[in-house]
């Protein structure tokens, strides 16, 4: 990809987001759905496959380019990004990181074009922050595998065509070692999707349980083929590192929007004879939010560059996700404050974003898990075991 092309891709996305998606935010919130014409337009633009390599029908953006693009996507309701977030992100990356050449050739083009929506099914009732403790099992039966278990909070499950399911294939192995990733198509007998979860925010983005009752899949459904057996957990962890930088960039985009909303309100809302932006206490809120935004953006750009050159693929992604998700939480809180009573009212964008932003500190590794990843790696580097 040439820099000039990347700039145009970002410019095209920026216009699309601001001209088409931002005006649709209230409708998305009200209907809890992305309008079909927006989905079609996003697929036609290529948004389902920006992280998939060109040879498989995607755009093949590296992390540094991807974060610039995601800054633009973050400027509107996170539900829009979520629609294709699993394809480019965690689910698509399972194939990129773990699949055989044949599997990549067969499935990545379907994912990059948006023909398929892919979901990533790792979390379970008793395995969230500690996914290595998952209980879903897969047992070999001749040439087939039989999967049993229940997955929870799976993004895009209600509309997914295919699920990347993580299951324990070696009950004897400890921790992540006996876990394998399977690609299970939606119409596989025994697979069912529960009702949509009733979430705090991000209306228009859906999660649900995925139930697997004696689901039979062929040996070819193992991601990575026979060599992929027992490698699923390692694959999942690599997908999460990429996903963490992606989520951090999304937080930066949303923080930018919140700062813009805050400034616009502070510049026009009149109280006590002047606009509230003339009060130093309000200025303090704006300055703190802008500073959080600048810091998060610089951090994400730096971490993406180090991810691309391979010099830091563990600590950086977690630092970025940890800081940016906490920062956007603070920025959203201040945005509500700056809006006064209006900030507490449904229909006002910052109220909606305040709820939307809360998720970022929880999924793809909670803030506490990021702290643990960061500290453990630091200590490991210092020789502590």
């Amino acid at each position: 990809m040439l820099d000039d092309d990347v700039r145009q891709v970002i410019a095209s996305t920026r216009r699309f987001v601001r001209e088409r998606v931002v005006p649709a935010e209230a409708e998305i919130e009200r209907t809890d759905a992305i309008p079909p014409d927006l989905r079609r337009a996003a697929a036609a633009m290529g948004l389902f496959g920006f992280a998939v390599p060109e040879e498989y029908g995607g755009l093949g953006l590296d992390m540094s380019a991807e974060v610039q693009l995601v800054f633009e996507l973050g400027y509107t309701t996170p539900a829009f990004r979520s629609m294709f977030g699993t394809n480019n992100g965690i689910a698509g990356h399972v194939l990129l990181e773990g699949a055989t050449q044949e599997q990549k050739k067969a499935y990545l083009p379907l994912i990059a074009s948006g023909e398929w929506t892919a979901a990533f099914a790792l979390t379970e009732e008793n395995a969230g922050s500690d996914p290595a403790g998952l209980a879903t099992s897969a047992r070999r039966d001749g040439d087939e595998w039989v999967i049993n278990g229940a997955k929870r909070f799976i993004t895009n499950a209600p509309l997914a065509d295919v699920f990347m399911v993580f299951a324990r294939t070696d009950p004897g192995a400890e921790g992540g070692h006996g876990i394998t990733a399977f690609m299970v198509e939606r119409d596989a007998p025994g697979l069912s999707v529960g009702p949509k979860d009733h979430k705090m925010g991000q209306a228009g983005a859906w999660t649900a349980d995925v139930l697997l009752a004696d689901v039979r899949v062929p040996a070819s459904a193992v991601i990575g083929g026979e060599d992929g057996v027992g490698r699923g957990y390692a694959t999942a962890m690599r997908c999460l590192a990429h996903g963490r930088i992606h989520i951090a960039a999304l937080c930066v985009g949303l923080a930018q929007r919140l700062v813009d909303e805050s400034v616009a309100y502070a510049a026009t809302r009149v109280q006590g004879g002047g606009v509230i932006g003339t009060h130093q206490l309000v200025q303090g809120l704006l300055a703190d939010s802008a500073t959080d935004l600048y810091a998060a953006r610089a951090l994400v750009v730096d971490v993406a560059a180090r991810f691309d050159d391979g010099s830091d693929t563990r600590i950086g992604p977690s630092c970025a996700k940890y800081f940016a998700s906490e920062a956007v939480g603070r920025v959203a809180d201040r945005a509500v404050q700056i809006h006064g009573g209006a900030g507490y009212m449904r229909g006002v964008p910052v109220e909606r974003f305040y709820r939307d932003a809360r998720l970022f500190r929880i999924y793809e590794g909670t803030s506490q898990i990021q702290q643990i990843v960061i500290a453990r790696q630091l200590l490991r580097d210092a020789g502590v075991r």
Partner: protein
Amino acid sequence: MNIVVTVKQVPDTWAEKKLDASDKTVDRKSVDNVMNEMDEYGVEEALKIKEAHGGEVTVVTMGPEKAVETIRKALSMGADKAVHLTDESLHGSDALATSAALAKVISTLSPDLIITSSEASDARGGVMGALLAERLGLPQLTQARKVTVDPGANKVSVERLADNGYALVEATLPAVVGVVEKINQPRYPSFKGIMAAKKKPLTKLSAADAGLDAGSVGLAGATSTVVDAQPAPPRQSGTIVKDEGDGGAKVAAFLAAQKLI
């Protein structure tokens, strides 16, 4: 269908537009330049007609080197090839000279259909479609809010925007069609389109390449000259009428004084 669509690079709609002090032409150097927004509708319509009937869309523009960005935008939306007429001597061409130059280039492409938009946001002349039709000796269907092409019958018909509805007008091909922004919703360049755009054929022509006589174009050949220009005066603050029981009468008197009622 061999379709030609004209596009122009203009200063960003939001940018403060200035005239170059030396020759009173639009200053295109100090501002961000973009594709004339109305032209996006023209490109979209050309692409839709191509998608329905097959054929090829050629983008034609006259403008400085930098206008290649606008060409690339049209190519990334899906146009097939482009002709860029660019030459120092073309600088300062007025509408007549521009239409002569564009007509010359377009005639070598022997199109079935030429699409223009109703106006460019910089000069806002709104005459290019008519001028091109005249110079090419073709029928012109302007202000189109809907275009229907029937290549079999060699016909194009449009719904022409009118004050209180529309007129249905028809012409034989080839023809010049001018579209308004109500006609469609321009697509956003797709990522694939952006990457493909650089590989599409782009012909760069100088005035001489195009067979233009240097004296007939540019500032030298312009039939009109901008002698002087002044920025619009800042808006005066309005008259405030205080209502002391007679507010209505005061407002009426004000409007009458302005000859508004």
